[in-house]
């Protein structure tokens, strides 16, 4: 069976007129774990860490609105590191929902991490890392980081991929935590237009990265399915459940179609 679907959907769109590896592979790959870590940190600083930071900045005012503390807001980014879960958490705290209901809503919003983290595993465990370091690395899986890691990791030597990922994700996590803190402090003093622009930065980034990265017809089908279904299902079932169902449907249909086209059913 072809292994191409493991690495075939690699993003290479930043500066990427050609997707033949020129984008992320033009620079000499790192050759030590430390080098890989810093390369990841550097790639994060180039854009994704700021985008994630901007979106995590919005958690600060939200937490403040519901009278949560600064430490709680910052720790929620450091320890949860998932925008939707944090929005659900602080939003529901504000409405006085029972804690059990909040936990259920949070866990529903987080199911997406299962396929996202799992799909990165073949690359992240290539250097036979310990169980503990994989658990730590999994905390760094977020949509922005997942998108960036898929684009970059294929060009990093397999044994160094976890180190690279730690640098990439760790930098995003650090900047996001600082951003939430800043957002909490400056809440209310930012203009509405500016705040809307910051929130809009995330879908804008995902759209451009997805457009540049989808390589095969099945990939496009998965994107179209998710894009078309999630708002409809979201209005019907609520955003979290709608997102999950649209992802499961869109992804499974694309996968089945891809297998059929390859004749490997």
């Amino acid at each position, binding site marked *: 069976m072809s292994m191409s679907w493991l690495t075939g959907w690699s993003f290479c769109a930043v500066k990427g007129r050609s997707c033949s590896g020129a984008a992320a592979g033009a620079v000499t790959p790192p050759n030590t774990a430390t080098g890989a870590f810093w390369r990841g940190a550097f790639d994060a600083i180039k854009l994704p860490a700021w985008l994630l930071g901007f979106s995590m900045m919005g958690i600060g005012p939200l937490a403040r609105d519901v009278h949560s503390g600064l*430490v*709680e807001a910052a720790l929620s980014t450091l320890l949860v590191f998932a925008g939707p879960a944090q929005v659900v958490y602080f939003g529901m705290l504000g409405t006085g929902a029972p804690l059990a209901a909040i936990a259920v809503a949070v866990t529903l919003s987080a199911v997406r991490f299962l396929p996202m983290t799992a*799909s990165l595993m073949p690359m992240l465990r290539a250097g036979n890392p310990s169980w503990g370091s994989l658990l730590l690395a999994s905390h760094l899986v977020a949509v922005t980081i997942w998108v960036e890691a898929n684009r970059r990791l294929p060009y990093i030597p397999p044994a160094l991929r976890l180190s690279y990922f730690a640098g990439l994700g760790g930098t995003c996590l650090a900047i996001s935590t600082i951003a939430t803190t800043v957002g909490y402090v400056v809440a209310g003093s930012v203009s509405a237009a500016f705040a809307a622009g910051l929130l809009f930065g995330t879908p804008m980034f995902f759209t451009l990265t997805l457009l540049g990265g989808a390589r095969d017809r099945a990939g496009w089908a998965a994107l179209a399915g998710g894009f078309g279904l999630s708002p409809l299902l979201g209005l019907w079932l609520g955003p979290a459940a709608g997102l999950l169902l649209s*992802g499961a449907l869109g992804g499974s249909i694309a996968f089945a179609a891809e297998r059929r086209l390859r004749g490997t059913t």
Partner: protein
Amino acid sequence: MLHAHSEGGVLSLIVLVVVAVLPNEIWRWAAIIIAEHLRDDSPFFGWVRYIAMSLVAGVVAQLLWIPGGTLADASPGLRVAALLLGVCAWQALGRRIALGWLVGVLALVTGVSLR
């Protein structure tokens, strides 16, 4: 150094861990446990990859059509127009993500300011 707004102090941090951190983190851990016994060439990984792609596209669509916070102040037409403008700029300016991103975001900020 708990902020004056904090109502529960340490208790609120325990609530954060039990109600937000753990229910969120178990899915990241579950992925490692499930993947552990699977070979790298298992079809499972291709399947979850397409699901993840579909999920990311779904996140974009939801942020665009049913946004929260101040982004809801921008009309749906403005959000879509800004997104399309960003995509066109990205295409026209040599597919540079940072440039397309900047054009799209500035378009939205301008649109909201002009209201």
